[in-house]
């Protein structure tokens, strides 16, 4: 974090940073401010467990025995946990937002649409995420008036998020889309994230959330938006940067196989859960037995989900094999296989040596998204390329 704030290379202003760095930076700031609440909650829980204090433990009767605790408030734990927990969702998501922006821009050979808005959206999401935490607690027994406040903030946070989604789409619009493996994962992210985000709007409203709480619908929402979507980006990021780290490309055929099984498999796993949740099937039950509202067919659907999950798990074995196999057998990548603009692709050696740059640090002359600049020699201009004198593209925006 201090590296971003205080130790940037020459010319790298904050508004020239790749969005990946912005995402990671903001997530770091949030981690710094959110983890204290988890820490405090954990300390107090530890004291409750080990010393017999009653921060969170109310008077309890367990197995017919009255426990020593009295007067603690479990709701307090929930507040502390979610004051950490909601920012944590974005600590996971923001780096993904950043990475996916760079993947889309690079593999669609087009500058990112609305860069400044993307940055401000990241910052706004980071700030807002500290005042939405109790939307996880609508049915916890907290002060019922909070529902109004937290539903409002939750729906407000949808605005910067929607801005980002639109900007990704507009980046793709008229782009020269290369359906490489990283790009496939990036596109899968947009679809999955949009899906999870829309169900988030359902759950952010108190009246809709109450009947859906603790059903499989929540499981579906959570996994779509925070489980599958960022993992898609992680995979995309690995396929994208593996050549820089190792000097060799990952195998394309195996990568495509991995992508399609993972993407379709993840949908096969989580999409039916929306339906199960609407039926009223509760989450966290290994066996629900006879109920009046869950039909037998739900069991069939659950079996289908399990099979799909096994298939997705198998695909990850293929991925691991690809990682290891390509280390020695992969195609030689060269320094910049994707023709990307950002600094990491311009290092003198691949994989980069200690200190990355050798003796001289790079100087940055432009933002990270000069793709397909009209009149430029190549379809990308690296960030550290000095401006050509009287080049025609200088007039371009």
């Amino acid at each position, binding site marked *: 974090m201090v590296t971003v704030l205080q130790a940037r290379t020459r010319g790298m202003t904050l508004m020239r940073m790749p969005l990946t760095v912005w995402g990671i930076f903001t997530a770091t700031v949030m981690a710094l401010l959110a983890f204290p609440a988890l820490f405090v909650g954990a300390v107090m829980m530890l004291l409750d467990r080990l010393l017999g204090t009653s921060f969170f433990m109310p008077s309890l009767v367990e197995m017919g025995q009255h426990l020593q605790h009295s007067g603690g408030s479990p709701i*307090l734990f929930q507040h502390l946990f979610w004051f950490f927990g909601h920012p944590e969702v974005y600590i996971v998501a923001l780096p993904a937002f950043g990475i996916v922006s760079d993947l889309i821009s690079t593999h669609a050979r087009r500058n990112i649409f609305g860069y400044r808005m993307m940055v401000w959206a990241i910052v706004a999401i980071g700030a807002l995420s500290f005042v939405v935490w109790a939307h996880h607690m609508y049915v916890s027994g907290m002060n019922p008036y909070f529902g109004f406040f937290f539903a409002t903030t939750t729906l407000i946070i949808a605005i910067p998020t929607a801005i980002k989604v639109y900007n990704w789409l507009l980046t793709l619009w008229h782009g020269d889309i290369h359906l490489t493996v990283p790009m496939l994962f990036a596109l899968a992210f947009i679809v999955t994230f949009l899906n999870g985000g829309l169900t988030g709007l359902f759950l952010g409203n108190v009246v809709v959330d109450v009947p859906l709480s603790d059903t499989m619908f929540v499981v579906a929402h959570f996994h779509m938006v925070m489980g599958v979507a960022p993992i898609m980006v992680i995979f995309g990021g690995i396929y994208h940067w593996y050549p820089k780290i190792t000097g060799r490309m990952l195998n394309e055929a195996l990568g495509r196989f991995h992508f399609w099984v993972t993407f379709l498999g993840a949908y096969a796993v989580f999409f039916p859960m929306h339906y199960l949740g609407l039926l009223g099937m509760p989450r966290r039950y290994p066996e629900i037995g006879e109920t009046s509202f869950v039909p037998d067919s739900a069991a069939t659907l659950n079996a289908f989900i399990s099979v799909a999950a096994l298939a997705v798990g198998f695909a990850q074995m293929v991925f691991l094999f690809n990682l290891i196999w390509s280390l020695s057998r992969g195609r030689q990548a060269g320094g910049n296989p994707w023709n990307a603009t950002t600094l990491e692709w311009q290092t003198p050696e691949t994989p980069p040596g200690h200190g990355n740059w050798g003796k001289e640090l790079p100087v940055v002359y432009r933002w990270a998204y000069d793709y397909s600049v009209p009149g430029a020699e190549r379809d990308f201009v690296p960030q550290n390329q000095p*401006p050509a004198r009287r080049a025609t593209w200088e007039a371009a925006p």
Partner: protein
Amino acid sequence: MDATPTDTGEALARPAGWRGVAADWSSDQRAFKNVSWGKAMMWIFLLSDTFIFSCFLISYMTVRMSTTVPWPNPSEVFALTIGGTSVPLILIAIMTFVLISSSGTMAMAVNFGYRRDRVKTAALMLMTAAFGATFVGMQAFEWTKLIHEGVRPWENPWGAAQFGAAFFMITGFHGTHVTIGVIFLLVIARKVWRGDFDQEKQGFFTSRKGRYEIVEITGLYWHFVDLVWVFIFALFYLW
């Protein structure tokens, strides 16, 4: 976007006010213009620590406000009997004054550090450490007294069980911070005394050149500990 290297502008006078904020944040290389990375890191750590202590105090506030059992009166609990009369909260008052004194000596140490007055800086830092150690000693005395009177993390003779829990937890964490601060002070004071920063001797761990700025960074930490005590004093003892 524009393809010119940004103006590094270090030598130019920087604008003030909101324009300054915008200019600093959009400037090249560093967002905090006249702040070293070491100092920035300490500030950022303190910000995070602020959140930790805030969460402790918020939790304490919540359990205290929502308890149906009476809360023990700190004014009486922390009273000492001096010369036959019971003086309310006197021990805590003395501890407060000790800590404020230490903050004063620390501020002086920072000041003399920047004047490169080796002896005075080291002496003032040692004095600060001594005040800090006194504070921790008095806290140990306070804990002993309360434990003798039957205060436990899970119960106490006067009321809500959360009293002891919150007390030991919050003062314990603060005391730990003070103790770490004392150690930190002693280490840096030794370096100042030896003249490491006058000779720009390289550090043991970092192999960077030591600078007097570390005195200010230590000072930031120490004042923060004092700051936390201001809040604990007001919210735990005076409430």
